[in-house]
């Protein structure tokens, strides 16, 4: 059953068509990747999904609910969480505080209850903190809760961002280049972690990724964007042998043989 359906989504910035009539579908419990060269419109599509941008055309349905026109906070409340390509933690807040902010959409008490410290408020805060510590442990950062997030090492910041995204208990998790800047061993660990997320928690995962080893290793389905347009989709094996994908990544020359290379260079 599809959890997210996007049909002919288009986003323009002035004359530039960043995403062009993109159709996309992801089933409950799948791990799907969107790949494509830099500037292909992958992150723009993410931003349309999460409400940061409003799509100019097309329809996006999440569990049957229309996402178009909703603000980012409303979309998060529906159960979509994301991480960012260049880590965007709340730098001056501690690791625990970051996760607590992530839990925001699940907390219900009214602000004035904090002033008079109602029972409901105290219970909820206690639970929230417990949950935050549990998440911290889950991503392997136990004991670092009081650290200012800016001071954490790079890898830890990535994992903290994941924990913060998980804190809203999403049913769909959007990961924007989760292994960027990691060495092969770290990205292998991240791969395993992403798989565990799906297997243990049943979270559907949509990721943008450049590391082909990661993409081919965990994706059950891959969608390829180039200049905002979908040029291919399919399983890892299908994508790897698709000439249009190779062309998009390596240039026309590589795709159609060496004899055409000289002619292809000016075209790219």
């Amino acid at each position, binding site marked *: 059953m599809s959890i997210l359906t996007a049909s002919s989504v288009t986003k323009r910035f002035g004359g530039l068509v960043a995403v062009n009539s993109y159709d996309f579908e992801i089933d409950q419990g799948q791990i799907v990747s969107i790949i494509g060269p830099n500037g292909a419109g992958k992150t723009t599509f993410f931003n349309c999904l999460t409400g940061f941008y409003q799509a100019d055309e097309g329809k996006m349905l999440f569990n049957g609910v229309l996402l178009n026109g909703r603000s980012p906070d409303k979309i998060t409340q529906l159960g979509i969480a994301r991480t960012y390509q260049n880590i965007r933690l709340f730098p001056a807040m501690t690791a625990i505080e970051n996760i607590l902010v992530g839990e925001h959409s699940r907390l219900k008490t009214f602000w004035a209850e904090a002033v008079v410290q109602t029972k409901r*408020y105290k219970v909820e805060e206690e639970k929230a903190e417990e949950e935050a510590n549990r998440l911290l442990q889950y991503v392997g950062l136990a004991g670092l809760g009081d650290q200012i997030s800016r001071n954490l090492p790079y890898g830890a910041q990535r994992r903290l961002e994941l924990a913060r995204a998980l804190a809203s208990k999403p049913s769909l998790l959007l990961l924007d280049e989760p292994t960027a800047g990691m060495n092969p061993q770290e990205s292998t660990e991240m791969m395993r972690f992403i798989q565990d997320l799906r297997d243990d928690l049943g979270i559907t995962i949509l990721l943008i990724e450049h590391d082909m080893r990661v993409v081919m290793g965990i994706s059950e389905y891959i969608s390829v964007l180039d200049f905002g347009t979908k040029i291919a989709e399919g399983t890892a094996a299908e994508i790897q042998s698709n000439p249009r994908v190779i062309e998009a990544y390596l240039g026309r020359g590589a795709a159609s043989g060496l004899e055409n290379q000289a002619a292809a260079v000016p075209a790219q």
Partner: protein
Amino acid sequence: MENKTHFDWKLAVRYGLLAGAVSLSVSVIGMVELFAQRDLIAGVLTLGQVILFLAPVGLSYIIAGKQPPGKKGYALLAGLITSLVASLPLVILVILATSFNLREFLPNVSPALINTLTFGQGVIPGIFILMIVMGILGILSAGMYLLPERFRKPIMMGLLWTLIIGMFSEILTERLRSFFGVGISKVVFSGKALRPTTALVIFIIVTLISAAWYRRGEAVKERIADSPTMQSKQFRWGVFAVVGVIFLLLPFLLGTYLSEVANNVLIFAIMGFGLNIVVGFAGLLDLGYVAFFAIGAYMMALLTSDADQGIAGMSFWLAIPICVAVAILAGITLGIPVLRMRGDYLAIVTLAFGEIIRILVLSDLLKPYIGGAQGILKIPKPTIIGLDLVKPDQFYYVVLLGCIFAAFISWRLSGARLGRQWMAMREDEDVAEAMGINLVSTKLLAFAIGAGFSGLAGAIFASKLTSIFPHSFSLMISINVLCMIIVGGIGSLPGVIIGSLALVGLPELLREFKEFRLLMYGILLIVMMLARPEGLWPSAVRKRELLAYQETGPTADPTAVESET
């Protein structure tokens, strides 16, 4: 290594010129002369002299620290040269002032100033005395640096406290007199200054205490911190109770005049708590904060005044919730149009809002209702069970109540979900929204609560003065409150009180400073940003953050902090 052992003449001269320029400026703008009227130690030292010698002494100390270690002679020489060079501009000033009429274009270069600079000994001997005194001070100051830390720190503490007590001797005399009679105060103080013997006694006592603390203090602190009673809940409540009792009894200790000062400090602190929410927690730079203060004050005036403009004749206690509610409404009204603005744009729009309110209040349009430039008079003071809270030491409790109210709400919210919402919004608005935070309501709550506190302060202010005028609500109030929370430590609740004491309390006590208030703000802010960017009493988080920042450095190589998997 070879060339490092040469004495660096250039550096010493450069520091000397810098110190001389500072001393010359404070003389020429009239600070030295004005402050010379305030004796610190009778017949020995005036505040003017302290200000005059501050830069040469300080820079001599610093340059002594820049000499190669082990070269004690170099350090003393550097101190001497720095201070002697620093005295040259002053010497030239004295000579010029006695030969030409400098007052035509430097009105502050008066005979009194020349008299201060030459120690009243005539021009030629005075010049030599000035140079000799400067030289000695320079050597002493450099010598201080050479002392081992266990002597240096206590001596510095001793000097500092003697100066501070001397500075406040006028008020202390008055207090001593009212508690112990004229006799005791005559023994300690002479006129409005410390007696030299008392100054010496204070210096020795503080130095000894501080020396003892230096030797044992850390151990004692650790032992107390480790002991189980220290961490217990009862102990914390105990501290709380003691602080509470001190605050309750404060008016009895302070007397009428100082209670009045305390009232001003606390009223500004209430505003500080509000602006701290808007700027410190939520990161929304609001420069029109005085508008809500004015709205609170005018509402109080309209609701309670016995003058023609008064419309309701309510009691203070009935009016105050209404004033706060109206200020909150005004906060929301300002908040809605600026929801989408960030940073500089927000600052400009709020600045304009503050001016609009002030000009409206002054305008002829509203004159029939709120009195225009004549303001509103006859605002009654609050009464409680038939008792009029008229005197400052009685009114203090009203202000204290308001301050506790504001501090309590700030404190509870800062640790709560709303506090986290604000902080997240301050750090990264887009991501905060992506975390499910509703930016509209979060921002409006910050504006509303901040405005509510400001309105509360305004209402109390109106009742305290019993009359209000438009000129009380100038842009300077906004700037004052903003400086206050920056100096105290942005986002820090105790910092609000500290900032208010420093920027509202101190200028009241040292009345001469009033003339140089803005200059002092500028200097203070620059010094703060260089020496203590986190503020005098920073919030825990911010302190850690800045410390870590200094350790890793602003341009820390990202590859240097690789993940430790």
